[in-house]
């Protein structure tokens, strides 16, 4: 029955009718998409424009060339923020990846109470970063949290004062961020593990592969597209991190945990230097593009390979 109707439309009815019939769908998809894309793109372009103007408290027109960019890149705050971004980005992505994968593999053992455990591991992602940051700022404070607890128990020489150590403070942000988002990586990996072809696993079992070998040689290699996705999502999160640092260290001690997003906010809204802040924001966008463009290219190649195969 449906078959005949479809055949009729394909042969007899004019094309416009088809478009009209699907109008609600088109409206539902394209209007919000165009609006949000237009919104995003227009504001991004506006920010780029502002970054070339001499704007301070409010936007003004004018042209100062790359002066804002050179000024921002020459500041200590930006240099510290950029170095921190490298440390934080690598540390956070690698650790959350490994933790997420480990959790996923452990959960994949068809254990009892899997649902409860999964919820527990996923729960931190439901928290606001401000909450995470505040709680960890207490836990990591040597006078209040973990160090004090261990000292009070009796191990008095125990030191865990990264929060107030300028060289280690950036790692406290890694700890809190990994705690918050390794559940997310776990969920993706778990979905990947569950979608591994059962025949593949059976074949490996018949060939006599043990569990470790099976994971290493058979299951994990099928996960690498998911790994790339997780890395890209976590990296773009790392680059835009703001609220977590704000609540956890406030960018301190001193300037030790500055990150690019903090510098942008500080320049724009605290120092009243809109154009400099916009330049810093555009630099952030370029860093993001450096991550996302290769990813897009990789996806494109993958799709082409799939089409050829």
């Amino acid at each position, binding site marked *: 029955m449906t078959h005949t109707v479809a055949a009729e439309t394909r042969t007899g009815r004019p094309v416009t009718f088809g478009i009209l019939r699907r109008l609600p769908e088109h409206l539902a998809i394209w209007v919000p998409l165009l609006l949000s894309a237009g919104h995003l793109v227009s504001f991004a372009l506006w920010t780029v424009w502002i970054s070339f103007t001499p704007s*301070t*408290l*409010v*936007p003004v027109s004018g042209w100062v060339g790359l002066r804002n960019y050179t000024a921002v890149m*020459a*500041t*200590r*705050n930006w240099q510290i923020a950029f170095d921190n971004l490298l440390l934080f980005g690598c540390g956070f992505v690698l650790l959350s990846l490994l933790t997420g994968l480990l959790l996923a593999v452990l959960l994949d053992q068809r254990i009892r109470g899997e649902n409860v455990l999964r919820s527990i591991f996923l729960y931190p992602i439901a928290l606001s970063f401000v909450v995470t940051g505040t709680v960890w*700022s207490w836990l990591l*404070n*040597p*006078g*209040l949290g973990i160090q004090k607890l261990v000292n009070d128990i009796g191990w008095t020489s125990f030191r865990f*004062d990264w*929060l*107030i150590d*300028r060289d280690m403070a950036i790692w406290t942000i890694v700890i809190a961020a990994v705690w918050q988002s390794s559940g997310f990586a776990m969920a993706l990996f778990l979905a990947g593990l569950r979608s591994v072809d059962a025949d593949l696993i059976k074949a490996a079992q018949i060939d006599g592969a043990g569990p470790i070998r099976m994971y290493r040689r058979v299951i994990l290699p099928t996960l690498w597209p998911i790994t790339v996705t997780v890395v890209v999502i976590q990296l773009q999160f790392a680059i835009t991190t703001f609220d977590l640092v704000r609540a956890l*260290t*406030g960018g*301190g*001690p*001193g*300037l*030790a945990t500055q990150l690019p997003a903090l510098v942008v906010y*500080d320049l724009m*809204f*605290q*120092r*009243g*230097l809109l154009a400099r802040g916009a330049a810093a924001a555009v630099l952030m966008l370029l860093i993001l593009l450096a991550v996302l463009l290769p990813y897009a290219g990789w996806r494109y190649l993958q799709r082409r390979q799939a089409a050829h195969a």
Partner: protein
Amino acid sequence: MNNISRRSMLAGAAGLFVAPHLTRAQAAKPRLTVISQWSAGSDGAAITALGKKFEEKGGTWQHSPVPGFTTEMMNKLRAQIMAGDPPACSQLKGPEIAAWSKIAPTVDLDALVAAAGYEQVVAPDLARLHKPAGKWISLPLQIYSTNMLFLSKRAMDKAKADKIPVTWADFNTLAQKMKEGGVAHPIANGGTRPDDGQKFEAALAGISPVAYRAAIMTLDESALKGPEVKAAFAQVRKIADWMDPNTAAQHYSTNLQRFVAGDMGMMIQGGWAQGVLLNAGFKLDDFIIAPGPTDNTKPVFLLNADAFIFWQRKEPDLQAGQTLMAQLVMDPAIQTMYSQITGSIPVRSDVDLSGAGWSDGQRQTAAALKEAVANNQAVLSVAHNMAQENGMTAAMIDVITEYVKNKAITPDQAVVRLSDAVEGAR
């Protein structure tokens, strides 16, 4: 007679013609749209009380508080100005008044200020900030000193000391005594940027108000690299060594309990800390308030003043509201009410603080201000954005806060960094 009556008839007719407008203008019920960051605690209570007075005078009070940092209030102000709908009146202070007055038209308050005789009773440095282009466009409301010295009574007992330190040498001796007497951390402090900035400005202004004026307020290059700035950094290092390193990024008020208990000894804070201490349930006899240390023994006053700026509006009711608000802000009775709630001191130097409702700390602060103004030792606070615009202030505080947290930086290096930062932000 005939002529006169004709004239009066004409006048009467004209009056009839004009009268409805006149009565409308006179009857325009004063209305005021205000934005400020004061939403809670003693600040919130004070501005609410001010609003009540405004309503008692027949006005409509429309206050939209933007809680949080001053910058958040400024973001709302910026958005409203850019939308062409500025509030009739907003909180703003220090050199930001000059900067912001360039982006939107403000109200000329000269006539109202003259009528209230306000100019004669405001400290000259302060008055200058509120009339950036020669005309009054904003009105200071209350004053705090950012370098008051708070002494914990219990810590003083532990140190067996009863003399209030006057110079930095006295201060250092007392801190040492406290340390020896079992006070864990002779200096109580938070870890925020303004906290660190306050330690530095208190040190430099206390060592030499002249050098402070030259280096920080006028950014004189040789003063910035001068021996006083280096000595101030050296003093800040001593202070930092006596602080609890674990405060991380905490607010100073987190440690008030330990301060009162004598676990921490001294606090260099703004006068507002008195209101915060009392609000937290502590008593006036838990602590002593004195002017910050000063090497020439005459009080140095680091000024921080909250103010209202008035933005031009066309609506007659808002204009009437601005007039009423300006009169209220300059009124000694209102300033008394306001300062008694917040713990600040009135801007008007002619308000009598001997009555009940004022604390000894406030009386001392007011006396210190009078003496400091007389000796030209009242200077503008940099940590609280009174001495420089925000961009310059932030560049300086960057150096100071790093110095406080990084003990590997020597005073010599800090001096170089500070003058470089100023050069970069110019």
